[in-house]
């Protein structure tokens, strides 16, 4: 709902002559009453609530799905991958999940973990989410290969790939995001500390999106090339999202994965120095969208559907054959997935060249059916490949959420494994 303005409230209060209490769109409380002093008090409280609005916002931990997927981007993110100890067995894995579940439930509420070395840094929730993922190899480590979904494997090497091991693969993922970098750092430290008995950190990749209050809403944002990113995503909370992302009984050969999803994380480096040499028209033709508002070339609005056959008066295609969106767009109803990309920027070279790019993510019920055909098309024909290079790649199963206190993340996998 549109936010209730302070003026509305004041009118409401005087009209009624008593007072008013209204829950604002973001969950905080606003109130005023007839007395001038309590009105002032109400405004002061409102102001105080506004001041910590970003900190106080909480994403529920308990739910059918894990949090951190069907959610507007947080400002800061960190993907931490572990290599499981070679002797990790199911019993130890269960102990790992028990600790992580307890930690995440506390951290998402803004509370310290048990045995927290820095409990003072649990400032508040700040929309913290921690999403746990499983890599393909952990099923071999745990000796439960029969429970790995059919076709779930690392993305086959694309000819554009220059993958580095320090950004690729892994057995267990903790995807941690928050709207505050200190809240994120504290959570990451606690979760890593509680994981070291079971594995070693393989890599950690940090990224960011817009600050809160910058984007009017939705997952789309501009990437560091200046392009509007995430335009034709399934809408959060929509039926399409449910069908594209969340696994149901019909879309998997593994019942334990119902309520979960699959994630591909690609670290895509951008060559901004050479990209900057292009003029605006060239940049727009590489993508197939205008840079002003993200509308497909030949159209007016960002959300207009691209017309790949449309030509201008001289007979040239509005959207050139080499344009990114021509091959990125779904060719069939199966080729739809949900993107939730963050940017990364790690320092600057002596010559001023920034190490920048995307922590590009896609979520789908089945990556090999929904994402892979699109990636393979883009690997062959996409002019954007001249300025972008995939340097990291990993795939993850995101199991269902924890619905009741006392259950743990991966409980359905553990139950299925015990029956093997």
């Amino acid at each position, binding site marked *: *709902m*549109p936010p*209730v303005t302070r003026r*509305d*409230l004041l*009118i*409401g*209060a005087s*009209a*009624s002559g*008593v*007072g*008013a*209490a*209204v*829950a604002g769109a973001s969950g905080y*409380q*606003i*109130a*005023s*009453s007839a007395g001038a002093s*309590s009105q002032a*008090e*109400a405004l002061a*409280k*409102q102001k105080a609530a506004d001041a910590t609005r970003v900190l106080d916002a909480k994403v529920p931990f308990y739910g059918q799905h894990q949090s951190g997927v069907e959610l507007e981007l947080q400002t800061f993110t960190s993907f931490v991958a572990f290599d499981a100890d070679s002797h990790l067995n199911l019993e*130890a894995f*269960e*102990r*790992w*999940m*028990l*600790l992580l579940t*307890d930690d995440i439930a506390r951290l998402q509420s803004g509370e310290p973990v*048990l*045995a927290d*070395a820095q409990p003072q840094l649990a400032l508040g929730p700040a929309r913290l989410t921690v999403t746990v993922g499983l890599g393909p190899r952990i099923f071999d480590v745990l000796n439960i290969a029969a429970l790995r979904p059919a076709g779930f494997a690392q993305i086959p090497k694309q000819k554009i790939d220059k993958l580095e091991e320090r950004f690729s693969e892994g057995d267990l993922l903790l995807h941690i995001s928050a709207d505050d970098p200190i809240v994120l750092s504290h959570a990451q430290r606690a979760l890593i*500390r*509680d994981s*070291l*008995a*079971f594995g070693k950190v393989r890599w950690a990749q940090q990224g960011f999106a817009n600050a809160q209050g910058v984007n009017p809403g939705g997952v789309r944002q501009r990437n560091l090339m200046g392009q509007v990113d995430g335009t034709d995503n399934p809408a959060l909370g929509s039926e399409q999202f449910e069908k594209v992302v969340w696994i149901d009984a019909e879309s998997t050969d593994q019942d334990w994965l119902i309520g979960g999803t699959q994630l591909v994380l690609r670290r895509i480096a951008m060559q901004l120095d050479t990209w900057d040499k292009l003029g605006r028209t060239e940049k727009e033709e590489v993508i197939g969208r205008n840079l002003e508002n993200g509308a497909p070339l030949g159209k007016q609005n960002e959300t207009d559907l691209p017309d790949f056959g449309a030509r201008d008066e001289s007979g040239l295609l509005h959207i050139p054959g080499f344009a990114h969106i021509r091959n990125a767009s779904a060719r069939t109803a199966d080729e739809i997935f949900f993107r939730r990309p963050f940017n990364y920027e790690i320092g600057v070279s002596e010559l001023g060249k920034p190490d920048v790019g995307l922590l590009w993510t896609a979520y789908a019920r089945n990556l090999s059916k929904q994402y892979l055909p699109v990636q393979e098309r883009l690997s062959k024909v996409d002019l954007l490949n001249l300025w972008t290079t995939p340097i990291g790649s990993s795939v993850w199963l995101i199991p269902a959420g924890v619905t009741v206190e006392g259950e743990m993340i991966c409980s359905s996998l553990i139950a299925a494994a015990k029956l093997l």
Partner: protein
Amino acid sequence: MNKLTLAAAAALLATTALTGCTSSTPAADQTQSTVDEKKAALAIENGWVRVSEYSDHTGGMTGVFATVTNNTDTDITLVGGSAEIAQMVEVHEVVMSGGAMTMQKKEGGIVIPAGESVTLEPGGLHVMLMNLNKAILDGDQITLTLDFDGADSQTLTLPAKTSASGDETYNPEN
């Protein structure tokens, strides 16, 4: 949802007898205090068992930490306990002795004053599981019973986890 109308705002305030500016109403406060009255005489929260190189073998030992709250109006004393995993459960304190932090049995037990909380934490008051019957590993669920003077014994199941903090033999001068 449509913008909240004046009528809706008025209706809200009619059903919400506001004393201040929060969602807390007198009615809600009443419910809360009813709950308070029913609260357990003794609340043990945020409990955990430490995993360290002292606990990873049979015969080892480790500490148990938690916040213990006395919701009654008389003092309660934590005097000891029992656990399947340990041959002995004792109540300990950490004191400065000869320039080193060393732990020792707390004579008379740990008093939780009426209406107050006592935090058992690394480097301070704690319960000690001694002469372990088996190793305690990260993520283990440890069941133990704590005995009190002035309250019923309480059986708890607590997670075990690694903590760097709490090596009572640590000597800051070294």
